[in-house]
């Protein structure tokens, strides 16, 4: 049975009389935890920002019709050659349409699926922007502006004008900033575009689009589905791409496989398309934790040293305590609680320091063309980090205190008293 109030008073008195060493030990923890909080908040803040940058714009599943050679060549149907290996030279892709067959029923089917947050149709068309006598090659994508805004954060990338304006204007175009700059046109101006077939259409600029990728911004523009269908001279069921957003991105792969199989279309899932992206996140997290743990180990050695020193200085006290009836366990607990007090106080101060620093970072301006919505450095104020931080502090001080306390427990009072 341990008498905690007494143990704690003794622990406290020791710490207070050695306030300098105690402070140094606690500061070590404060520094470690503070650095951990700052680092992890900043790193995951950046990660989340980069994730969003990718995730917002990128569909979880992209469905389209790929022009590719037929997987099963006619010769495979010929039974007589079943046991031999046919070699076919110069396979040509099959002639097929770019449009998705039965796109509208497929869209309905996808939108009814409970795992699907939304599926939106797109039409991709190659066009030319006409500026005087010059023709600039570009892409015009027909979209459902409001759905795109809802599911793929289109609004974040419209730097002038709005998605509603595009939706409300039959002849509107959302022009890439690069294109606008090249042609020196502004919102409200009219421009002309021409299709590959040579038909010329006038459109009104209702907004400017900036993705942050300048190569893309120099060619990409958006217009309404209907407008593009009209420009291409196609019917209302002409749709070349379907972008799907799921409730859970993990389901993208199996679902893409299912769609490919069921509808004989190409369906690319997010992870397959962006394999390198996951790796980056993992590596950044790894670095954060490696640095934090290193800092805490250093702090742990500091505590270990200081407790060891304290035990040498308090050798007499330990002998007296044992002589007047404190057990080895009591003495061990005295030094363990000193370690834990240092860990707790240092840890809490570390959390405050980390919060202060990361809050400060979150106010530093950070503006870049690539991220139109980001104004300051991104910080992730996740309460979990603070929980992990304090647990980290307590666990590392526990280990740092364990050996010295164990030593204090085993000190033989007779030896000390004789040594006097």
């Amino acid at each position, binding site marked *: 049975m341990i008498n905690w109030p007494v143990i704690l008073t003794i622990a406290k008195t020791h710490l207070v009389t050695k306030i300098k060493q105690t402070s140094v030990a606690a500061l070590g923890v404060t520094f470690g935890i503070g650095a951990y909080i700052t680092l992890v908040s900043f790193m995951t803040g950046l990660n989340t920002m980069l994730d969003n940058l990718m995730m917002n714009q990128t569909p979880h599943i992209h469905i389209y019709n790929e022009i590719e050679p037929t997987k099963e060549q006619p010769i495979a149907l010929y039974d007589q050659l079943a046991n031999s290996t046919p070699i076919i030279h110069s396979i040509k892709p099959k002639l097929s349409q770019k449009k998705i067959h039965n796109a509208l029923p497929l869209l309905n089917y996808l939108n009814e699926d409970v795992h699907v947050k939304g599926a939106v149709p797109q039409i991709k068309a190659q066009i030319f922007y006409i500026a005087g006598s010059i023709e600039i090659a570009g892409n015009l994508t027909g979209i459902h502006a409001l759905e795109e805004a809802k599911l793929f954060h289109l609004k974040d990338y419209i730097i002038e004008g709005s998605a509603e304006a595009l939706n409300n204007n039959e002849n509107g175009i959302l022009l890439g900033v690069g294109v606008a700059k090249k042609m020196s046109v502004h919102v409200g101006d009219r421009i002309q575009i021409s299709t590959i077939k040579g038909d010329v259409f006038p459109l009104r600029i209702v907004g400017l689009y900036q993705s942050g990728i300048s190569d893309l911004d120099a060619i990409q523009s958006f217009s309404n589905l209907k407008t593009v269908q009209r420009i291409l001279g196609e019917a209302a069921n002409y749709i070349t791409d379907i972008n799907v957003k799921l409730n859970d991105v993990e389901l993208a792969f199996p679902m893409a496989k299912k769609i490919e199989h069921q509808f004989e279309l190409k369906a690319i899932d997010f992870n397959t398309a962006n394999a390198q992206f996951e790796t980056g996140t993992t590596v950044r997290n790894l670095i954060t934790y490696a640095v934090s743990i290193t800092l805490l180990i250093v702090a742990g050695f500091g505590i270990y040293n200081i407790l060891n020193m304290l035990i040498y200085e308090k050798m007499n006290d330990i002998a007296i305590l044992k*002589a007047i009836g404190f057990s080895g366990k009591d003495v061990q607990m005295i030094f363990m609680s000193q370690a834990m007090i240092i860990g707790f106080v240092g840890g809490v101060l570390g959390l405050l320091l980390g919060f202060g620093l990361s809050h400060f970072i979150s106010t530093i301006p950070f503006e870049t063309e690539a991220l139109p919505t980001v104004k300051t450095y991104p910080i992730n104020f996740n309460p979990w980090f603070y929980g992990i931080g304090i647990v980290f502090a307590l666990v590392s001080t526990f280990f740092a205190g364990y050996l010295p306390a164990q030593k204090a427990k085993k000190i033989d009072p007779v030896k000390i008293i004789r040594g006097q």
Partner: protein
Amino acid sequence: MSIVLEAQNINKYFEKPTRFQVLKDINFTIEKGEFVSIMGKSGCGKSTLLYILSTMDTEYEGRLLLNNEVISGQSGEKLSYIRNKHIGFVFQFHYLLADFTVLENIMLPAKKLGEKTLEAIEKDAYDKLKLLKIDHLALKKASQVSGGEKQRVAIARALINNPSIIMGDEPTGNLDSNNADNVFTIFRELCDKQHLSLLIVTHDEDFAKRTDRIILMEDGTIKK
């Protein structure tokens, strides 16, 4: 009269630097209210015996009984409890916790025992301080009082749990004759008025003569 402490066939060896026997077949009893002193030449094993009797040293052969209960071979936890409740120890060098006040030093064993409330312990501590005429020092840091005063604080601390026996290893060895006399008087009064048992190692012949009984040691054995 009841027996407080009994040593039966205590043998003790030191292994280093070479094996040699410090204590040879020690047998004696101390009765309740008896004031006993141990004398003997330097190096004859008095301190060694006292550390064994006080349960701090457990590496010995033989049996030790406190209040007719065998305490040899008990667990460390149990021995700590016995030291706390039944044995008061006074060292030659006034062993106090320097960072604590006199009052805190005295209260500590009682707090550890945890049988009384904090107020009751504090009152007890003041009673002991008054008994030893040092109540004016209560709130001073232990490191800031004189040697004679420290020794009295140590006695007060030894008394706080009303132990069965007080043991002292040359408690007056470090004091001038005046202070030594003082400490003796205190012991004598504790013995006479409160029927406390005392076992004190001393080199001071005058001190020993005024106790009830002298145990004389020679080369690890008891002469008489």
